[in-house]
């Protein structure tokens, strides 16, 4: 054995070149067709430039050539994980312009389906976030439960992902006869799975090591960047349109706005954003249970469907709390049967814009976690 050669150098004199790396547009961890141009100093991220538009389908241009009810299927395809929630602000906006008040039963069904879809969305968000961290089992558990929720949607509307179910003035058709039993059963099941997920994933030491103190988003930055939904609430900001600007019948239910508290790390880190989604599933279950109690059995869901949808000249900005945050539609009518302009304020579009700000200085592997914790759907980013 020869003697080890003594090398004489100073770490500070080591020169490293920065490298530009492309992530995506087709990479599983970018959650869709998103391209991130990343500048790296060794393994440290120094700059992130998102390039979007790969899934641009001219939603707003299409809307100008469609009648008001024909827009609803397009709205479904914005955030295709939670289509029910997408339809709600759009139909509410058109109803407000027309001055329609929908029957009680319709409001309850809308709330129940919105909240069920919120659960399905959060289950996907938690599942894929775990998958990004390398946890495969919770993914299977959560997707199994989501499947049951989709079956209920299928029974009611005929579609599993894209429903076209909330119509202007009512619903496409009444719910199936076993609606209440089905939902009581799924709520029970979701609660049980949630307990398992807490043990399997969220309070797992490896998972906490990966996500705590990573991608910290302070509340003031969140507001300035227009973040909403679990991204803003994870930073400790109690901003929830269901409470702050109550729409539909959300003022009748008792539920809490969950915010991040920095339980295992700092307020506003990846873990906080994720735990907000986890607790929101429980809150949604509470809302559904209350709604099932209060819901009237009698009523015709198609009674108020207008024959002609021709809103008077004017404009409206209709917003609602999507699982991902504030989803708004700016609808301008010129008195004809086709809208003059429909602008969709995509939640994921706005939330994604904060990514370059919060991922600087972290490791490259953390960037994937930060992106996963924002929970984007590229259909809504690119529209």
């Amino acid at each position: 054995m020869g003697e080890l050669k003594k090398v004489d150098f100073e770490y500070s004199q080591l020169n490293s070149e920065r490298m530009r790396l492309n992530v995506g547009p087709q990479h599983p961890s970018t959650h869709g067709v998103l391209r991130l141009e990343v500048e790296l100093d060794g393994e440290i991220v120094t700059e992130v430039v998102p390039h979007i538009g790969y899934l641009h389908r001219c939603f707003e241009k299409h809307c100008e050539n469609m009648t008001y009810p024909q827009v609803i299927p397009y709205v479904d395809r914005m955030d295709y994980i939670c289509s029910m929630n997408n339809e709600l602000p759009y139909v509410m906006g058109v109803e407000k312009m027309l001055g329609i008040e929908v029957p009680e039963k319709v409001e309850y069904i809308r709330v129940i389906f919105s909240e069920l879809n919120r659960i399905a969305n959060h289950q996907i968000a938690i599942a894929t976030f775990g998958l990004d961290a390398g946890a495969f089992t919770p993914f299977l558990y959560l997707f199994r439960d989501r499947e049951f929720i989709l079956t209920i949607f299928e029974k009611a509307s005929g579609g599993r992902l894209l429903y076209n179910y909330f119509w202007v003035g009512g619903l496409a058709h009444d719910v199936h006869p076993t609606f209440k039993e089905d939902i009581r059963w799924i709520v029970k099941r979701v609660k049980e799975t949630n307990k398992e997920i807490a043990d399997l994933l969220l309070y797992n030491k490896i998972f906490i090591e990966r996500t705590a103190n990573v991608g910290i988003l302070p509340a003031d930055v969140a507001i300035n960047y227009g973040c909403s939904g679990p991204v803003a609430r994870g930073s400790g900001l109690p901003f929830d349109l269901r409470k702050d600007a109550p729409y539909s019948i959300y003022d009748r239910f008792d539920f809490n706005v969950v915010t991040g508290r920095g339980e295992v790390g700092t307020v506003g880190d990846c873990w906080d954003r994720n735990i907000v989604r986890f607790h929101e599933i429980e809150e949604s279950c509470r809302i559904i249970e209350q709604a099932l109690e209060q819901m009237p059995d009698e009523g015709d869901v198609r009674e108020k469907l207008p024959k002609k949808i021709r809103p008077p000249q004017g404009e409206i900005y209709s917003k609602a709390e999507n699982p991902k945050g504030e989803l708004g539609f700016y609808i301008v009518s010129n008195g004809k049967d086709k809208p003059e302009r429909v602008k969709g304020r995509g939640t994921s579009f706005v939330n994604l814009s904060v990514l370059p700000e919060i991922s600087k200085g972290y490791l490259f592997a953390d960037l994937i976690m930060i992106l996963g914790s924002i929970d984007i759907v590229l259909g809504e980013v690119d529209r």
Partner: protein
Amino acid sequence: MIEQEIYNKLKEHFGDAIVELKEAPPSDPFIQVNPERLQDICLYLRDEGDMLFDYLSNLSGMDLAENLGVVYHLYSMKYKHTIVLKVTVSKENPNVPSVERIWRTADWHEREAYDLFGVIFEGHHNLIRILNPYDWEGYPLRKDYKTPEEYHGIKVPY
């Protein structure tokens, strides 16, 4: 604060730069402002103690036949009130001051309005296309837009 109070306060401070307040239910009321002093007005709305519009919900471009418009939907986290601002510029000279420095979220929104309507936001640090390819020609959401025949040898209308 209701819209009328906000309008009165703005009128007091900025005089002629505030054009009018339009209310016609069920439409949302909005305040038409002059583009020249837009940045001052926005900064005032954001920082004034009893308004604090710290959250820009939405920014959208509009094609108003002869003119282009930009619509700002503001929200206050503290007071939970909203207001809508509107500016109008001509199609020949579509320059609007950027509010990106006031609300950082306006960065992407303004790029989108530039991409789809061709509104030029003065003072924006990186005004490039966002949804369309970077070398796309024309502004697709303008009413007089004609779809190009082909893009890099690919047939566009199918």
